[in-house]
């Protein structure tokens, strides 16, 4: 599946980012190809958010290079990233709850008609485009005037993803899209990821859930405390290996021991058992 072109669509070379004395990211190298899903995995504080912010033009790297189509490039602001075809679906989705779906969909890129003082938004076009774009990923909009605040979490993700795809994204960055969702809603979002990949987009899927990552990923990049723990192709790894690398087998064993001490309550005991199994599974790899 993974067709590697001569130069990757997006590449990071030895990128570093410091906040004061904190090394938020240290020597990160990453390649992203179109038609591939690259999963960035890491626990809280691993530097995932900093990485996305650099890719989407919010922060500039302090060292290292960012290349698009093999050419070094700087992204001074989010608009510059958008112009390069990098669209980010932030964790908070960048949607405004009190505004209607169509207003949100075109926010910042409103279609207009007329000129001079009568230049206005093309509301009819905005509504019909939004409806057809959402239909492409299987969402039927009941009423384009419905406020985004009334949509479910999965539907809001859909609006944000459809918006990014419509506005010419070549690289689609999804920041923890499944973290706040239930099983079924997560499944729907994973389906959108696969659809975007099949459209030839390069998808960067940031998550702390190795199960979700392994369902759709072609490449896996692990971050821990701002450093790369490794980069693997799908054939080179497994869900268990990813889990172990993320959490660390020793840490899981310690968690299991701690929980055992508190094992009076049955639900704690169950958690301890689970942690133990995970630790054993990880050692078995």
């Amino acid at each position, binding site marked *: 599946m993974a067709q590697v072109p001569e130069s990757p669509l997006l590449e990071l070379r030895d990128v570093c980012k410091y906040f004061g004395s904190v090394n938020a990211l240290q020597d990160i190298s990453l390649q992203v190809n179109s038609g591939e899903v690259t999963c960035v995995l890491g626990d809280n504080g691993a530097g995932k958010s900093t990485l996305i912010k650099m890719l989407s033009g919010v922060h500039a790297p302090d060292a290292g290079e960012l290349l698009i189509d093999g050419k070094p490039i700087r992204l001074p602001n989010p608009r510059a990233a958008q112009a390069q075809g990098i669209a980010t679906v932030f964790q908070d*989705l960048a949607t405004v709850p*009190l505004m209607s779906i169509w207003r949100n969909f075109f926010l910042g*890129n409103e279609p207009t008609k007329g000129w001079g003082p009568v*230049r206005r938004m093309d509301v009819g076009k905005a509504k019909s485009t939004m409806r057809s774009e959402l239909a492409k990923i299987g969402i039927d909009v009941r009423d384009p005037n419905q406020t985004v605040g009334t949509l479910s979490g999965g539907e809001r993700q859909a609006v944000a993803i459809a918006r990014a795809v419509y506005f010419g994204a070549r690289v689609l960055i999804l920041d923890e899209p499944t973290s706040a969702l239930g099983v079924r809603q997560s*499944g729907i979002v994973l389906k959108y990821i*696969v659809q975007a990949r099949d459209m030839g987009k390069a998808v960067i899927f940031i998550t702390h859930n190795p199960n979700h990552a392994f369902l759709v990923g072609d490449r896996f990049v692990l971050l821990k405390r701002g450093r790369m723990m490794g980069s693997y192709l799908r054939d080179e790894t497994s869900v268990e290996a990813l889990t172990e690398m993320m959490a660390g087998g020793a840490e899981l064993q310690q968690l299991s021991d701690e929980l055992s001490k508190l094992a009076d309550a049955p639900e704690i005991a169950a958690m301890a058992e689970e942690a133990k199994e995970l630790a054993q599974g990880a050692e078995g790899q």
Partner: protein
Amino acid sequence: MTVTAADFQTSGPAKAGDERLTHVGRATRLLMRPELGALLGAIAVFVLFMSTDATSNHLWIHQTGLAAWTQQASVFGIMAVPVGMLMVGGEFDLSTGVLTGVTAIVMWFFMDKLHWNAWLAIVGTFAFAAVVGLVNGYVVVKTKLPSFIVTLATFFVLRGASVGGVLKLNAGSTQVSLTGSHYAGLATAKTIFGSSFLASKALPNGYQTADLWFVAVTIVGAWVLNRTTFGNWIFASGGDANAARNVGVPVARTKMMLFLATAMSAALVGIISFTQASSAVSEQGVGYEFFYIIAAVVGGCFLTGGYGSAIGAAIGACVIGMAFEGVIYAGWASAWDFTFLGVILFLAVGVNTLVYQRAMKARR
């Protein structure tokens, strides 16, 4: 072995004529509009004063009543519309009231002290207001302090300057006025800003040209807010500034423009009142900023930003105009109009809260 889209068992694209599509009736759609509460309130207030009208011949429902309350409503409305839009954009401006008085004094200064032509003085007055508006906007955007505090400071600066400046320029008097008829351009400026029309035997003073300015400002405001790209940015800046910034909306510029708009409207009101009376007093307009905010809230603008209507704010100004005049027509002591406004404001906030809850819940 990579998964494909088909591996996820979810509902496919909707077929035409989706069974989930519930018909949203015209009545429900109307109930969702932010200006509806204001309209119902305005009708209720109109009917109330119609029934309590104590004048001979029931003047409230005749031209006299209309001319009287629109005269009040227009100068409130010219401000309430941009103040409401600023509130939709998530900010407050407490310096608007005093600025309507200060701009009148500034126009007097240009004409009487600097001997400018009235039209040049009008341009100068708008320029002065633009500076005040941009300073308000710039300080709010740059310091990220609450606009409530920033414009409260502006309010006190202007209030002091209006008293101190007038006393200094005018030999200890608190009133400034044009005397004589030697002021170039004053006659034409008065025709455009400060005169009346449609005078008749039944209505000797006619309607104020300010009423037409009020209608014009409302139309422009409603157009900008609902139909233009900038209007979309206003809703987004007030609804979720961070989200708006992330999708490329220039939030800071949007807010600066809104502060500019309220200040320019204050200049318009100052010019209207000065050309009407050829005079101004220090501290003129002080306290009116609250009427503008009340009008905007009655019109469905949220205090928390992100939602509201320019037409609603205009209707809110009409409610305030009717309250001030209706109390006189009803023969009540005029002090009660404040109590009346307080009750109306309270009811309006209640209605807004219901609208908010509906907007955030699935609509059925």
